[in-house]
């Protein structure tokens, strides 16, 4: 059986045609021509409130159809409400689908929510400062009293301008639970935040820009903050592992040489060694000096290209007794790094400039290692890894602060900037 989706009747006030899209459900309807409110619970069509004004346009027109939450909806009613004390205004569109029933599409400051009435009884909702629904905790955000300012379309309840309801909003972004108390009943509505472009796409319209932060607007990095920090932690761990596995590097060559007064100006050379892959090279020299100094001019020469990398090592070591206490200064070891040395065959030329140098000379030794872990690099990586998570963390904190700025029930951690009035 195919049903007729629209029923129409003549307005008892002005005679104009009024259409009913949710026949059997709608018990009041507003005449499109004269704005009178008509009782549509039965076919007597009594006038509830007579008016003489043309209906005003709404952002989404009555009769518009759009898909939200993968269900097709028709806009059948519109209510403009205001909060009695804050004087803020918001729009509630009543959506209908003959199979899925009703939803509310709510607009406030350009922020949108899709809401449905839920059939759950929670005795504390409305009075408690926190309520639980589906294992999620909702915190009270606002208590107020709403007044119906304007109506258009049709409704499954008796709608009337000036109707007042007490309401309490609880939030668990991106959701919001609203408990409304009228004289007859208590109802609970569960809303979920919608991006405005989803509404625009659904109804093929352009909407006003949003402003501020909505009570249940999902925070930036919503649900991701933990993941972001987990990834950061893992990255640091991996960097550490790489650092450790690289460790103290691979030895490429060792060399010993004897420096004595007669060979004071001699330049020594290591044997040819091969650096298999671009990497850093570390030269660690050990000279057993005592109360003396020495400078080693190092020149790392590529045998194929003759390119040279130069460095200077200074070693000095002094020690003695002062008033019975042993003291020492300097050391007998020097380490120099050459960074990013291309692959190839190399020799290291050592040009020593000794200090006093006893007549027996000295036995110096050195070792050349490649790919030595450099902790400085690690700390740079460490900081780079943390930049984004830290940004996410602070931005999130700033956002939550903003969110709770408009609430009288902000959690203590977001109350810092609040004045006492």
């Amino acid at each position: 059986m195919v049903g007729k989706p629209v029923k129409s009747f003549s307005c008892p006030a002005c005679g104009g045609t009024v259409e009913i899209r949710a026949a059997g459900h709608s018990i009041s309807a507003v005449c499109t021509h004269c704005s009178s409110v008509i009782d549509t619970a039965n076919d007597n069509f009594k006038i509830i409130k007579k008016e003489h004004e043309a209906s005003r346009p709404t952002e989404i027109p009555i009769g518009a159809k759009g898909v939200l939450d993968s269900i097709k909806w028709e806009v059948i009613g519109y209510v403009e409400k205001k909060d009695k004390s804050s004087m803020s205004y918001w729009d509630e569109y009543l959506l209908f689908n003959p199979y899925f029933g009703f939803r509310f599409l709510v607009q406030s400051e350009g922020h949108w929510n899709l809401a449905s009435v839920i059939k759950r009884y929670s005795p504390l909702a409305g009075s408690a400062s926190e309520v639980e629904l589906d294992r999620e905790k909702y915190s009270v955000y606002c208590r107020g009293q709403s007044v119906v300012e304007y109506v258009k379309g049709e409704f499954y309840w008796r709608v009337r301008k000036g109707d007042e309801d007490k309401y309490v909003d609880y939030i668990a972004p991106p959701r919001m639970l609203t408990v409304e108390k009228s004289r007859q009943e208590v109802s609970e509505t569960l809303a979920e935040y919608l991006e405005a472009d989803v509404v625009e796409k659904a109804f093929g319209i352009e909407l006003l820009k949003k402003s501020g932060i909505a009570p249940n607007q999902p925070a930036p990095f919503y649900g991701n903050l933990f993941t972001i920090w987990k990834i950061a932690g893992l990255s640091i761990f991996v960097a550490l592992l790489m650092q450790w596995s690289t460790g103290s590097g691979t030895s490429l060559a060792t060399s010993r040489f004897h420096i004595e007064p007669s060979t004071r100006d001699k330049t020594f050379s290591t044997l040819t060694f091969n650096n298999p892959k671009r990497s850093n090279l570390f030269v660690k020299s050990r000279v057993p000096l005592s109360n003396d100094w020495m400078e080693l001019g190092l020149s790392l020469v590529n045998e194929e290209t003759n390119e040279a990398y130069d460095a200077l090592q200074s070693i000095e070591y002094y020690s003695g007794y002062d008033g019975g206490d042993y003291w020492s200064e300097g050391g007998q070891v020097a380490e120099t790094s050459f960074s990013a040395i291309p692959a190839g065959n190399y020799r290291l030329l050592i040009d020593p400039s000794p200090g006093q140098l006893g007549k027996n000379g000295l036995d110096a030794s050195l070792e050349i290692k490649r790919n030595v872990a450099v902790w400085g690099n690690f700390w740079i990586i460490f900081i780079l890894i943390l930049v984004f998570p830290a940004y996410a963390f602070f931005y999130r904190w700033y956002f939550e602060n903003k969110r709770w700025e408009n609430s009288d029930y902000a959690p203590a951690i977001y109350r810092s900037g609040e004045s006492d009035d």
Partner: protein
Amino acid sequence: MKKFNCPSCGAEVVFNSNHSVYAVCKFCHSMIVRHDLDVESIGTMANLPGDMSPFQIGTEGYYQGTHFSLVGRMKMGWEDGSWNEWFMATDDGRKGWLAEAQGFYSICFEVDPPPLEFAVRAIQSQKQDNQFIGSALVFNSQKLHIVDAKKATCIGSEGELPLAAPQGRMIVSVDLLGAYGEFASVEIETGKLRAYSGRYVDWKAMRCSNVRTFDGW
């Protein structure tokens, strides 16, 4: 399943459910009451007002794994609107109803015999008027709260039903709701008391077939 001939027009009247005692003839709209062996006509049913209900007689679906088909409907009206109560023939032979109001669906089964104490307390609370909404009652080891009480009148009926539902039949109905969507209803008709227990269900969860279709939907 039992078949009779309409005492008024002679057309075949089928009682699919053993619980059914009343039917409206599809052809002449005679209201037929079933006795042990015979049927009797008690008048004529006017046309039901049109609505956007997705259901019709013959719609099938599932509730908690049990298959049901809708065999009759009672349309109830009250001060602030109307709702449909669809009588279901279920594969497990229980006496079930699918109620449809304001786009919400609930399925409940008659509790037989009615839990008297519970019903009496529900009605007593209802008489205390203002304060009774929200009061808690335990029923079938479920904690339920009274959410609503109203006087209602039968606007019309179709198909077969387990009770006679002529136009103007008056009841008082008290609805109870639990924290997880459990639902119960106590219904008082002069001299009779009935109780129903079940829960709210989603449209999708019922996996309905043979539903009504609407142009443009």
